[in-house]
């Protein structure tokens, strides 16, 4: 079908609908407002439900209810609202409920700013709420990738019975790029959604009673539950790492960057290569699980690494863990909604080689 020029936020919303999402619960916050706005328009057209909750806290708990009773469901927000959702995300992870949570990041901490940021990396990749858990985190670097990763997020969520975070920033949310949308399954049920016999849908005695729960008052039972969850996380970590490599084979310096910042890094790499500097890039597409293994492999040949982030240095911790002290890992970042400029990244490249 013909390409459409779509804003990132709207493309994510439409992709969710085409992934079979029929329930959306949200709350306004910049710079993600086009997602709930788009959903409020589209959901009634296709027999879905859009509901503006009284708070992010309520929205994530509506997600818990809808997911727990078997639906493909999504919510979206930005930093301050995502913080409020963390209680619910921990419950969702504990009760093993699939859903997709979109975070279009803005500058923090506190109320911060509404300009783009990647300051929620730690919050996203370390679970974010209380207790021992992780959730898959997908980081698109273009609008068309946001479309495909939204679909992937729903599939991962159902496959592993887990919340999945789609982590973009204000630029991904606001910019328009051409997208190829998947075919339009405007029927009520998702074609790819598996059956969910565990869901609370009304008990007629033909199966065990469905109880959606994260409470295990007996410590040994809770430890067994945690062990099972950790086994699941290990399975995700083994199977679901996604990343892209660009010009890494001959690279002296490898940049590690994700999301829109990887695009800025790509421009800097082109300029560096034009002046004879051998630079490549590993771009994590899943932030958790982090592509540690390919980075470790690259550390055998590259002389150094440089992470570029819109944060004070968060992903750099994971990069250093992956490199394991074998080679230096430098960091360049901007905060507060300031975006690294190509020329500044280029200057850091020149410093590092």
């Amino acid at each position, binding site marked *: 079908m013909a390409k459409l020029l779509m804003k990132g936020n709207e493309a994510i919303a439409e992709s969710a609908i085409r992934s079979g999402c029929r*329930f959306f*619960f949200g709350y306004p916050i910049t710079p993600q407002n086009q997602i709930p706005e788009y959903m409020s328009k589209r959901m009634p057209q296709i027999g879905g*439900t859009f*509901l503006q*909750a*009284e*708070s992010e*806290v*309520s*929205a994530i*708990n*509506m*997600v*818990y*209810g*809808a*997911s*727990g*009773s*078997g*639906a493909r*469901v999504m919510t979206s927000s930005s930093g301050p609202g995502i913080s409020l959702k963390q*209680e*619910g995300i921990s*419950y969702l992870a504990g*009760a093993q409920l699939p859903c997709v949570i979109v975070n279009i990041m803005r500058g923090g901490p506190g109320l911060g700013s509404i300009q783009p940021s990647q300051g929620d990396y730690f919050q996203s990749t370390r679970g974010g709420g209380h207790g021992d858990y992780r959730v898959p985190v997908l980081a698109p670097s273009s609008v068309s990738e946001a479309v495909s990763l939204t679909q992937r997020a729903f599939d991962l969520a159902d496959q592993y019975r887990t919340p999945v975070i789609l982590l973009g920033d204000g630029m991904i949310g606001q910019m328009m790029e051409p997208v190829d949308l998947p075919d339009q399954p405007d029927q009520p049920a998702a074609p790819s959604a598996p059956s969910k016999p565990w869901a*609370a*849908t*009304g*008990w*007629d*005695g033909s199966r065990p*009673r*469905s*109880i*959606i*729960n*994260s*409470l295990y008052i007996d410590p040994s039972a809770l430890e067994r539950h945690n062990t099972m969850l950790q086994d699941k996380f290990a399975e995700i970590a083994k199977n679901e790492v996604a990343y892209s490599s660009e010009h890494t084979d001959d690279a002296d310096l490898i940049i590690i960057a994700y999301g829109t910042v990887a695009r800025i890094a790509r421009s800097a790499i082109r300029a560096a290569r034009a002046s004879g500097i051998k630079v490549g890039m590993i771009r994590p597409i899943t932030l958790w699980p982090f592509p540690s293994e390919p980075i470790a492999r690259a550390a055998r040949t590259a002389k150094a690494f440089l992470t570029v982030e819109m944060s004070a240095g968060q992903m750099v911790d994971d990069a250093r863990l992956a490199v394991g002290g074998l080679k230096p890992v430098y960091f360049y970042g901007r905060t507060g909604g300031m975006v690294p400029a190509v020329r500044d990244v280029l200057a850091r490249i020149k410093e590092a080689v």
Partner: protein
Amino acid sequence: MSIVFSKPLSLTDNVLTYCPGCTHGIIHRLVAEAIDDLGVQSQTIGVAPVGCAVFAYNFFAVDMLQAAHGRAPAVATGVKRVHPDKIVFTYQGDGDLASIGMAEIMHAAARGEKITTIFVNNAIYGMTGGQMAPTTLVGQVTTTSPYGRSEELTGKPIRVSEIISQLDGTAYAARVSAHDPKHVMEAKKAIRKAFETQRGGAGFSMVEVLSTCPTNWGMTPIEALKWVATDMVPYYPLGVYKDLSKGAA
């Protein structure tokens, strides 16, 4: 031999874990009887709170979700929007509903969510060991109001049924009590009415049930039942606060 008394089908065989003399058990039974009476056990989905009733999913023989503290009405909203044809109820205490979950209950009612809330008001936080609740009476001693609840410091207790009944989305709101057989029978009628209201699609329905907490009140079960009548009922008047269901006057 004929059976003259039996456990409702909508209760499991699990032994209730509530304290001796607590009226949660009676209220559980009333909810289960209402579900049985309406013949909707297989179509009912319940939401358990955080509080003494946190294990409600062990006791109601229906599909259940356990919610975060205060969030049961939001969880129930999610369930009901996915399954508009099912009967969805929340079972919440006064700390859960009237303190941390005030936003969720008010907005669920304001939206006219077609769910039923059973609100058990025993004027104290039971599970955490007897702290002051928003419903604790002025002068009542709790572990966080050791000199008695001070009106100057913490204001007066919240009367939830009165507030909820003011919202246009509320179709049925009643306050009942479980402190003696006569009132238990009235409570049963109100709970059944609330579920019928949901089935009829009129809007949000809630029954507030005054309940005892002998353990944390520091009373015998009999003293506790009497205290409901002498101290709680005067501040929390019983009655139907709103009834927009079909056939209501």
